[in-house]
């Protein structure tokens, strides 16, 4: 039986190898969110990987709004049992179900909405959360967003709605790594106090300083769950380091959408022990 602590290193190996093969994909944000995905899928979510249903009744749901970090989603879904781990080797290759950005189009278990064009996932999650209320289903809806993604206006349409209409079965997490394609978020478009912005929209705001500390992520997600059902949607502003886990990839936007070459892959994998067996 694998320990939850075995997952992050193995998922990082998967991410690195997945983007290396096609020399394409987004490793940086994926590696920064590895602890979040580990905590969510291997401890927090009440879900049924062996019998995936699009409908998702009687389960917690997760929506990845910043779809470009598909490598971490795919690795996590496979390792959780949604589909065979061996399929990770097809990422971004012709005829794959593991498209560059996630899609329902090819029937990949674990994916309930296409994402990639940014800013749309929060609205979808709000709709799914309202559907749960209509169904008398007391399970929760989780989302993940990039911080750069919050520059999209639709996010704030959804945030205003969720706060005003008390969508309190929803836990959104913002990956606050401070980086986006063209540079740091402060260089591209400073976003000010994100917590204050969500609070002003009627959300219950939580902050996590160490989003790459697995135990800290587990604790904040557990606490977020206890804060649902109280009239406000919950948001976690989670600080992470893009590229966390490999010293030469960490903390820079350089690895947002660039794959390691052969030499870099060897050096990176040396820093991520094979804990659960490579695909």
């Amino acid at each position, binding site marked *: 039986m694998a320990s939850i602590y075995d997952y992050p290193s193995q998922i990082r190996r998967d991410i690195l190898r997945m983007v290396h093969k096609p020399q394409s994909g987004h490793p940086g944000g994926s590696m920064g969110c590895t602890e979040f995905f580990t905590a969510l899928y291997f401890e927090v979510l009440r879900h049924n990987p062996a019998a995936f249903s699009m409908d998702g009744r009687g389960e917690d749901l997760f929506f990845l709004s910043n779809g470009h970090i598909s490598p971490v989603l795919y690795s996590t879904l496979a390792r959780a049992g949604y589909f065979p781990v061996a399929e990770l080797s097809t990422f971004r290759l012709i005829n794959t179900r593991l498209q560059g950005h996630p899609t*329902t*189009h090819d029937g990949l278990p674990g994916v309930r909405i296409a994402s990639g064009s940014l800013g749309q*996932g929060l*609205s979808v999650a709000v709709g799914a959360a309202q559907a*749960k209320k209509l*169904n008398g289903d007391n399970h929760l809806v989780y989302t993940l967003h990039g911080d750069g993604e919050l520059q999209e206006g639709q996010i704030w*349409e959804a945030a*205003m709605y969720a706060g*005003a209409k008390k969508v309190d079965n929803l836990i959104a997490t913002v990956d606050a790594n401070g980086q986006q394609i063209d540079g740091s978020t402060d260089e591209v478009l400073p976003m000010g106090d994100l917590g204050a912005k969500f609070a002003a929209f009627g959300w219950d705001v939580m902050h996590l300083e160490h989003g790459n500390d697995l135990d800290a992520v587990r604790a904040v997600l557990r606490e977020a769950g206890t804060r649902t059902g109280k009239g406000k949607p919950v948001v976690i502003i989670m600080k992470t380091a893009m590229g966390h886990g490999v010293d030469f990839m960490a903390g820079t936007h350089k690895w947002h959408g660039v794959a390691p070459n052969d030499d870099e892959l060897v050096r990176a994998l040396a820093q991520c022990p094979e804990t659960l067996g490579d695909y």
Partner: protein
Amino acid sequence: MHPYTNQGSQDTRSGFGAGLLELGRRNPHVVALCADLTGSLKMDAFAKEFPDRFFQTGIAEAHMMGMAAGLTIGGWIPFTGTFANFSTGRVYDQIRQSIAYSDKNVKICASHAGLTLGEDGATHQILEDIGLMKMLPGMTVLVPADYNQTKAATIALADHHGPAYLRFGRPKVANFTPADKPFVIGKADVLVEGSDLTIAATGHLVWEALEASNTLAAQSISAEVINFATIKPFDTEALLKSVTKTGRVVTAEEHQRHGGLGDLVAQTLGMHRPAPVEMVAVNDSFGESGTPAQLMDKYGLNAAAIVEAALKVRNR
């Protein structure tokens, strides 16, 4: 002379409102969303009778489309309502990714389409929406002709799985199709049989096509009138069957030539049975303020324009 009579002019948006209300009573899975145009879309009766199944999103159309996609996850059948301009162009990427590519069972219901929105002018008079929506893979596109048919189309959509676009309008227009006729998605209706030319019409222009057929009949020209209330999937068979008989076509729609029914008819004929086509449509321009009748006259979208096009296509 065509056998149809105007049973009393009504707006097609009221047909949508009546259909939605009936669906609310008939189908417990139907929900509705509106972006601050509940009265204009005639959704207020549904909202009043089914407050738990009605979502007022405020003026946030992009969010409304995403939320509708989310509501399908859990088994609900969402009908979104706003003006056609804000139902398509404003939210095209949300529809493309969260609804069409994600194969979500969302019904996008769009009022105030085309020039007949009238005095508000070109900012609101979308004439490109049929083209935008029919280009999306898997999207069903319906443009019913009158109140009765819009009501029937609304009801039919609830039993049809998949993303769909329903286009209707603001002004009171002739209501002439049978009140109890079920809407069959993908089937065109031959309203008048004829032998000299085919008039392929959609939406508000169908009644104008019937009126034009009367004028043509008085000149001993026999026009076949077909109501293409489904734009996609297109009823290729109905078109080819008619053109095999008549050999020429006039298309009529409240839309741009580019991307509309005319394009579709010309493409279909080009591929299967080349024949002359004249298009009654807006020719690469925006609209403007005016009454619906003034605008339809100025931009050549009425029975007189159809007659003129018919005479032209006859001589080609």
